[in-house]
């Protein structure tokens, strides 16, 4: 089976690999796994007060498609609003990378990771709002 050039390019030169401070108030972390293949994906978003994603980092232990999916998704959300990021569907990732049917779950993982990271950020913000600053 032939993989697309775009997929191979993201796999060989992954964008935004690394990590952000998971304890920082403006960083949301999503850690998700795919039970079918045993892949784990960590995705982190640094979000400013205007709700803009200033930085995105990922670290994925899994197959090439999972790595390419997470790399692509960080590129898609950087500089965009939370709302935009929340609207990302796995089908956009799958189409962009021309994922074969057996690898569609990798794009689902990337969508789940973005959603988990945003949920974590929102939870932190709610906690911050609940604790009065001095």
């Amino acid at each position: 089976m032939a993989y697309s050039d775009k997929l191979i390019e993201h796999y060989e030169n992954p964008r935004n690999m690394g990590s952000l401070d998971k304890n920082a108030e403006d960083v949301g972390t999503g850690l998700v796994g795919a039970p079918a293949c045993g892949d784990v994906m960590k995705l982190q978003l640094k979000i400013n007060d205007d709700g803009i994603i200033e930085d995105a980092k990922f670290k994925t232990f899994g197959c090439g498609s999972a790595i390419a999916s997470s790399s692509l998704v960080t590129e898609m959300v950087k500089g965009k609003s939370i709302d935009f990021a929340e609207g990302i569907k796995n089908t956009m990732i799958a189409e962009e990378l021309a994922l074969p049917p057996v690898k569609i779950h990798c794009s689902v993982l990337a969508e789940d990771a973005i959603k988990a990271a945003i949920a974590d950020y929102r939870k932190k913000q709610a906690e911050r709002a609940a604790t009065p600053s001095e």
Partner: protein
Amino acid sequence: MICWKCHERLSSLRCASCGALVPPPAQPELFGALGLDRRYHVEAEAIDGAWRRRSKDTHPDRFAASSAVERRMALQWTATLNEARRVLRDPVARAWYLATGKPHPAESGGPKLSPEFLEEIFELRMAADDEPDAVRDTAAKLRARLDADLEDLFSRWERGEGDLSPVPERLSRLKYVDNLLRELPA
């Protein structure tokens, strides 16, 4: 059961009287296809033996002179028996099959693993390059615990106690641990 062709009483997959094959099941139960009991604890030799006995009765070469329908049935039996042997010989596939009716996890969905477990796997992955020996050690312990867990679940189930509902979650964990162990630097 009686022979579909000559109505003789059957004692194997092939009629002793006219040589006709029992029609292959459309949705075969893999243990049943081999004439085995549904058990997790089964020796590879028992599976091979059952496969060999049944394959002898159904081998397509025996039906070279038979009708097209019977040749097709022989082929289908062969495919079913081969599939049953392949799946049931593999302990992980056998466990999935007993617990879910499928020899592998579903493509998506599946059991939800705890964030703590994912965190533990992720941390082990992060440490794999720097301290492979320590990671291998921890992973081996995780695996041993899961193996003991599965062993216990299936033993009790075979005695008629408890059910297999916790099995998919354990098998999913096993998958993460095995991937980690496989990809550790030597």
